[in-house]
């Protein structure tokens, strides 16, 4: 046995009993945290005790007791049905089924349903409010109604739902027929994309679907690009901000799309060079990229504004896109570098032996292979830009240039002039394209986002 040998062999595990303090530490921390949370809850509850019930809210005294009773009853019923299910299952399959496993699954369902209800009901409520001309986001509930859902205001009057709020968004808007046609085409292809995604989930054989999928994406992109490019502010002559909502959607799509394209243009070559080329300064540049993105861009806002003002680009899409471009580079370069490193280098080497230059190997071999990554970079940037608010709010000063976020903020900000009904309608319409994109491209999106963090 030499020293060399012991270094090479894997370290052997030697069990050491941790000290008492080391063993007690997690429990001490847990106790402290629980105490803190307990104190917080106590303070919060104390701040509520003795408050008079609000006039605008229908209060049921001791309602939580009934709620707990309902939950307990549900658990009891589930315990019973699990028992029946277990017996039936054992008889029909002849296998041993553990009662606790069945009950556990049933209780999981109950918990998940509650979680889904809490997580999704707010969205459903806003969706319903969009159709409610009486502005149910900000109204007195109907105390005289015997139905408890109406009485408490948890549901708007389902009978009184209209398209009035949506109508206000399209007030004074002229849309030529060909644009309607293009819009319908885009909607249809997006719907087809969603259906294909659904089918893909159910069926395992998806070869034939891939062609349709590609076609749907092409039609969608072409229709949207035509729509976005040829829609003009002159089509929107209505009074008030809300009549220009469709224009703001168009503006957002334009800005997000161009930012996404710019992100691909700027980060792919850089990411490729970082992954494959070895030259002095590569590591330093990479570090520079990483550290630059840590400076909070929002606080450089004054400087960005001053810069764009000198260039005469305030209140222009060019200025906004250029301002976004700086933030788009570092992260995407890093992601693309990781992706290129995961590709086998032998492909490029083979191409270069066949006479391709470095650049040729990049454009002819690596780029065609990185389709899914490019889709992810584009989508991530697109969705991120769509949801951006601060820069857009500062740089875009004219109503005709506003993006969706700024437009929505104009409905909700201000003490006495809030338009919650219109906000709900606009939020519904504004969220739809992103939801459709998200679910249509979920495969790329989830895969790419999580790939950054989760390592095997």
């Amino acid at each position, binding site marked *: 046995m030499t020293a060399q040998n012991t270094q090479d062999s894997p370290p052997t595990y030697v069990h050491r009993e941790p000290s008492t303090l080391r063993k007690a530490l997690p429990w001490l921390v847990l106790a402290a945290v629980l105490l803190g949370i307990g104190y917080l809850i106590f303070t919060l509850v104390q701040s*509520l005790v003795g408050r008079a019930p*609000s006039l605008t*809210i229908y*209060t*049921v005294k001791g309602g*939580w007791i009934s709620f707990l009773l309902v939950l307990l009853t549900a658990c009891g019923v589930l315990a019973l049905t699990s028992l029946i299910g277990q017996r039936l299952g054992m008889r029909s399959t002849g296998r041993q089924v553990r009662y606790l496993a069945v009950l556990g*699954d049933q209780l*999981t*369902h109950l918990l*998940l349903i509650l979680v*889904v209800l809490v*997580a999704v009901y*707010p*969205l459903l409520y806003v969706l319903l409010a969009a159709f409610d001309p009486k502005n149910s986001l*900000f109204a007195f*509930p109907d105390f005289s109604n015997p139905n408890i859902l109406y009485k408490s*205001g*948890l549901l708007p009057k389902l009978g009184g739902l209209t398209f009035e709020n949506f109508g206000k968004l399209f007030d004074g808007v002229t849309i030529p027929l060909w644009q309607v046609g293009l819009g319908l085409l885009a909607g249809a292809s997006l719907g087809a994309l969603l259906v294909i995604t659904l089918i893909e*989930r159910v069926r395992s054989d998806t070869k034939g679907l891939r062609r349709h999928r590609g076609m749907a994406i092409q039609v969608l992109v072409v229709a949207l690009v035509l729509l976005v490019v040829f829609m003009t502010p002159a089509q929107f002559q209505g009074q008030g901000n809300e009549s220009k909502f469709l224009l703001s959607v168009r503006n957002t799509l334009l800005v997000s799309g161009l930012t996404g394209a710019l992100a691909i243009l700027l980060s792919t*070559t*850089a990411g*490729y*060079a970082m992954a494959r080329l070895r*030259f*002095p*300064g590569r590591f330093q*540049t*990479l570090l520079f990229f*990483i550290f*630059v993105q*840590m*400076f*909070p*861009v*929002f*606080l450089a*806002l*004054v*400087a*960005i504004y001053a810069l764009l003002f*000198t*260039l005469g680009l305030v209140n222009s899409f060019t200025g906004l896109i*250029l301002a976004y*471009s700086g933030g788009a*580079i*570092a992260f995407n370069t890093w992601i693309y570098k990781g992706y290129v490193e995961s590709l086998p280098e032998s492909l490029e080497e083979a191409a270069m032996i066949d006479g391709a230059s470095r650049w040729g190997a990049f454009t002819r071999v690596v780029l065609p292979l990185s389709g899914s990554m490019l889709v992810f970079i584009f989508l991530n940037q697109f969705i991120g830009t769509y*949801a951006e*608010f*601060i820069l857009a709010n500062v740089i875009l000063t004219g109503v005709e240039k506003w993006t969706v*976020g700024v437009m*929505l903020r104009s409905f*909700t900000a201000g003490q006495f002039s809030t338009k*919650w009904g219109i906000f709900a309608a606009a939020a519904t319409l504004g969220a739809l394209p992103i*939801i459709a994109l998200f*679910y249509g491209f979920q495969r790329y999106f*989830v895969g790419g*986002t*999580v790939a950054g963090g*989760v*390592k095997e």
Partner: protein
Amino acid sequence: MAVALTSLRRARSLTAPQGPLGVLAAIAILAAVLALSVLIGWLISGLISTAFPGAPSSVVLICMAPVLVLLLLLALRLFPWMQSWYYLVPALVFLIAFTILPIVLTVSYAFTNYSGTNSGYGDTSVKTPVTVSADRLSVTFSRQPDGFTSLQSFLGCVLPTCRNETVVLYDAEGAVPVNARIESLEGRTLHLTTTVADSFKATDGTRLNAIRAVGLANFREIFGRASTELIPVFLWTVVFAFSTMVLNALAGLILGVLLYNKRLKGRNIYRTLLFLPWAIPSVITIQMWVALFNQQFGVVNKTLGLLGVPAVPWLTDPLWAKVTVLLVNLWLSFPYMMTATISALSTISDDLYEAAGIDGASRWQQIVNITLPLLRTSFTPILLSGFAFNFNNFGVIYLLTAGGPSVPGRSSTAGATDILLSWGYNTAFTSSGGQNYSVASAIAMIVFFLTLLISLVNFKAAGVFEEARR
């Protein structure tokens, strides 16, 4: 001639200079090319704007781009070893123009008194009538400006003759002020170094609200009031980022483990529905929550009313507002943590569970002894980047509470839910903050150093440096 040519050829065939010299040479060449193209682009755009006075000032960008491309190609002919750098040039140019330049400007603002008032323009609040002499070289104030005993104190002169100070002149419309350099001062008459244009009919004059260097005064101001602003805001920032991280991780972990159960029917439906908060742009959903958390009309309080809870002041009570911010942030980001958990779980081999099952381990024991320890490796980087992200999670704070409600004894720019970043934003952009750009820039620098610290720990844990060096 021939010698020069051969030496040039020899220089071209050289491979890249290695080591730090190569880095410096490449940076110097790129910087020279960039500076030259900016210069040439600026000159051309100057020519264009004299030929066509209506041309927008963004013409300088359009002029610069072709010049830059041309010069880059030229540089590549001279230094072929620069080839590798050219892959980085597009990203570098944009990064320098729209990230580095603003950062440099911000850092320089931090040491000045730049604000809404001290903005480098004339002070219109103390305009005083003036007359210009016939030779257009001196300006006489018709009276002492209100509230000042002498012109020296009014103009803020360093020297008693006010040499090299600036006076701002307005015509009757007051739209386009003219700055004039002062040569000397005599009573209420200022002698100027250059003549005022004949076409300019000056009616009023005022002092310049100059942006002056103030050294470390902004930092002194911030740290001087640290006990009422910096420290509480910093503590809340840390508490906010940390508890968001823990809450989201717990929720994501629980849901992920529940949904990874292959026996569970309809788990795809649950997963699809629970994705929704992630799929909808947060700029929309956060504003939605403002309505839902309203004390009098919000649906949250209406629901709680059914349970017998009195109306909770979600957004108006300092303590409750903090709870609300955490809850909304939980709603916004648990789908991501859930997805991350599911992806991480799918990397754990089923054999382990099988073996444990054979050994008689219960489901709970399997979770505690197999799942959680194995999740730790993939969860550490996610948690740390979550902390870093939430440390600067300006969007949720600004759109939900705008930093409020205000806390008695603290300035209104540092409300109960303000994190460092939103405090800086309020200082710069709200009227209550006095549009104090310089203090905001100083705050930005503090935030930057804190972020740097967090990110260093973060990168160390995630192995970013090893990955970069590879």
